[in-house]
């Protein structure tokens, strides 16, 4: 029997805001337990939520980035359940009126074409806190409670693990470029739950879906789904049936394991949150956010290749993060040669970032400084070799022009200045001239080396070569 696979993904994305969705507590990583909380986050008696407008704006921005229809009159609902990390006893979410519906993400297909994966809905909600369990006690940390989230629910339109992977990449990339989230799985700012079912090819009914939870990377998502489609096929081929289950993926064995069997449906007793008035999303606000929407990565890659003449590979590397891509765009704006700018970002800059384990936006490297350096390279004020020193200075926050001047790194490119030095070196190295005329090419290298030595490496090798060859061939 041959099967086809159906995959749907639910992705939680933490929004990057200064404060929580319904309280003024800060949102930040690495704080002591319960440090970023206040009476509202504790569900303290008498407290009420107020809406952080930035969260709503970010939600609209996300909806625009996902090509979705925006709900003009959303209201929040309460989702009721008891759990220690859920202090009010309910989570505030958009159940009835999701912020956006009917979006899509385009992915490349194996045959080189493209496919649109539908997005059912996207809603805004608050995150819960976190419980940790010790030997004798359990601990509740509410720092994460009230962190703004968007949940993006795909349509069950993916048919292979690779498609799911590509969808996630597309989603991550677009959200990351809007700047509303870091979308980092390792920091929990992006979390993925997968639903996967298989059915005999040709069947018009979906198979029983299995939920995969707590996957830590896109690669694990792909591996877990691949394992799961095989496993389910084997169960069915052996005459078994797939039950409603939640499973987890073990990274070491590459297999999925049963977490819990789902019995019946949870009843969350949703109803409209009476403490928050319904929102009015105006067209003017949407337009404002649409105008502020940055150019998306796919568009940028197209521009880099077709307008700036970069390779597909270069374009892909440069658009891996918005910071890198913005940095590159700024370099071009400042008049840098695209290829040279691209090379420096992928070369020296990336090497530095990897070496220092730091993000571009957290370094002292500025587009202005790097552009100034590239300009000096372009007009041959400095050599590629000197550029190494200049780049190091840039990472220390120094002004490259000042640095070059102070260190006397300006390249000698004036033939009138170089000619006497070349003549002098030739006059003192008659043997080399003879060697050259006898066809020994190595002699040229030696002579250049001598000239460089005399100029302390400042001579422009290109100009030196020209003058030298001219003199030798006379």
């Amino acid at each position, binding site marked *: 029997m041959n099967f086809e696979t159906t995959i749907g993904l639910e992705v939680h994305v933490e929004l990057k805001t200064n404060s929580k969705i319904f309280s003024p507590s800060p949102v930040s990583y690495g704080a002591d337990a319960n440090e970023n909380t206040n009476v509202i986050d504790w569900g303290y008696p*008498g407290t009420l939520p107020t809406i952080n407008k930035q969260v709503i704006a970010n939600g609209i921005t996300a909806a625009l980035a996902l090509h979705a229809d925006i709900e003009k009159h959303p209201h929040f609902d309460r989702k*009721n359940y008891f759990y220690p990390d859920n202090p*009010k006893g309910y989570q505030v979410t958009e159940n009835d009126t999701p912020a956006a519906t009917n979006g899509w993400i385009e992915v490349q297909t194996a045959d080189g074409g493209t496919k649109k994966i539908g997005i059912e809905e996207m809603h805004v909600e608050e995150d819960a806190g976190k419980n940790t369990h010790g030997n004798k006690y359990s601990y509740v940390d509410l720092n994460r409670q009230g962190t703004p989230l968007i949940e993006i629910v795909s349509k069950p339109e993916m048919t292979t693990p690779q498609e799911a992977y590509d969808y996630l990449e597309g989603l991550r990339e677009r959200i990351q470029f809007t700047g509303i989230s870091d979308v980092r799985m390792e920091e929990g700012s992006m979390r993925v739950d997968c639903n996967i079912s298989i059915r005999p090819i040709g069947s018009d009914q979906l198979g029983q879906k299995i939920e995969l939870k707590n996957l830590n990377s896109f690669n694990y998502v792909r591996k877990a789904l691949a394992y799961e489609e095989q496993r389910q096929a084997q169960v069915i081929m052996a005459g078994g049936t797939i039950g409603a289950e939640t499973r987890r993926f073990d990274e070491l064995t590459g297999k999925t394991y049963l977490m819990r069997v789902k019995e019946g449906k949870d009843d969350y*007793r949703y*109803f409209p949150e009476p403490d928050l008035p319904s929102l009015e999303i105006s067209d003017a606000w949407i337009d404002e956010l649409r105008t502020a929407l940055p150019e998306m990565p796919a568009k940028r890659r197209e521009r880099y290749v077709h307008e700036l003449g970069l390779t597909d590979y270069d374009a892909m590397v440069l658009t891996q993060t918005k910071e890198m891509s913005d940095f590159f765009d700024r370099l071009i704006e400042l008049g840098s040669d695209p290829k040279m700018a691209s090379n420096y970002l992928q070369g020296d800059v990336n090497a530095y970032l990897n070496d220092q384990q730091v993000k571009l936006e957290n370094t002292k490297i500025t587009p202005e400084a790097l552009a100034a350096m590239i300009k000096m390279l372009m007009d041959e004020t400095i050599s590629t070799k000197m550029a190494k020193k200049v780049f190091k200075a840039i990472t220390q926050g120094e002004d490259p022009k000042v640095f070059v001047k102070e260190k006397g790194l300006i390249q000698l490119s004036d033939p009138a200045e170089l000619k006497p030095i070349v003549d002098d070196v030739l006059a003192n190295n008659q043997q080399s001239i003879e060697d050259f005329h006898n066809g020994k090419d190595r002699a040229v290298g030696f002579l250049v080396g001598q000239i460089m030595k005399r100029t302390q490496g400042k001579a422009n090798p290109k100009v030196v070569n020209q003058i030298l060859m001219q003199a030798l061939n006379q």
Partner: protein
Amino acid sequence: MNYFDRDLESVHQQLVNGDVTSAELTKQTLANIAAQEPDLQAYLAMNEAAVEQAEAVDAAGIDPDNVLSGMPVAIKDNLVTTNMPTTAASKMLENFHSLFNATVVEKLQAAGAIIVGKTNLDEFAMGSSTEKSAYQTTKNPWDLTTVPGGSSGGSAATVSAGQVLASLGSDTGGSIRQPASFTGVVGMKPTYGRVSRWGLIAFGSSFDQVGPFTRTVKDNAYLLNAIAGHDDHDATSSDQEVPDFTAHLNDGVQGMRIALPKEYLGDGIAPAVKDAIRAAAKQYEDLGATVETVSLPHAKYGVMAYYALASSEASSNLERFDGIRYGYRSPEAKNLEDLYVQTRSTGFGNEVKRRIMLGTFALSAGSFDKYFKKAAQIRTLIIEDFQKVFQDHDLIMGPTAPTKAFQIGSESTDPTEMYVNDVMTIPVNLAGLPGMSLPAGFSDGLPIGMQLIGKPFAESTLYQAGHAFEQNTDFHQHTPQLGGK
């Protein structure tokens, strides 16, 4: 000194003149409360620092432009305070001390009022008699064998007994107006959103409003002046301009068009109550108003809709009392599930549990459309009923409660029977309108209340009409038995 035949302005004048200091007034108030407390049982906590705070106001000088400066007041114990425990009359919050003050508390304190104590209520404001308190039953000062009404029974009783001139209560389905009616004082439930709910322990979030009890209409207007206004802490609080509610008190009712819903004088309303309201209508006509009979056809569904909606909200609002972070925790629990079940089973009283179950049921997947949604539709119809009447009437008059105060312990075996007590107050909460109860008669020595209902944010109209009535009647000048002792 008790406060019978006095009002805020006269006592304020004494403070300004230096005839009495705030500290003396506060001490006397506390002494009166202490003397009557064994009979009345109106308070759950007293402010230990009250005299000290009064001395501070004296030292700073009584503000001659603010009638609340140095004035003793009481507040319902579902308003959170930092310097007194807040229990909402529940075992669930026994000895609970809040880390912040309710906005209305902050506003009273900013005005220089001395909060003398926290008054008793039905647990979490659920009840119509103040018998559902986990701690004590407050008595009606007019007859200690009867209830003071509820849920703000303590706040109503302390004003009625002449212990303070003003107190705050909260009103979800009638919890200010019905006890005002039973104890013969003035009680105002402002327009939803007029007063901040920040610091009010939530019962039915889309209904709850804080409001004042006073002996006179004018005093009530002064109190609302002090507590009304937008609050950034409360997303449902309105940014409507707050007028001076005392400004139009003397404008009279000449030419005013008053509606009297026929449903409010129908079956189930005690004859004495009907008589009092008819007499009041006649009084208004004598004063130059027109009174017309109108219909609120959906009002009769109000109680059912309210209990579905308010209980649903309550079931959710009370989920936070789970024994994890604050308040009562059952010592019996062995595991997490147990902790929830034991804490909530022993922490909540029966009436609260009844409503939690009712609300939980109404919200459950199979019932939501049948109950919650249907009730929300009824709510819309009731709002439309009111809108229609207000197209050509300035206000609505009727009884506050169907009867005078009933006997303590008279609740029948059917717990829902008492719910009809709020039949005339509930539609006002469903529509978010302002409603005021003021004394309008007596039946066998017990007060009868008249309810005035206004357009959204038209509290001034209610005060104006209430004051005109008060000026031409003497019901508010009678004193209860307890005060006469």
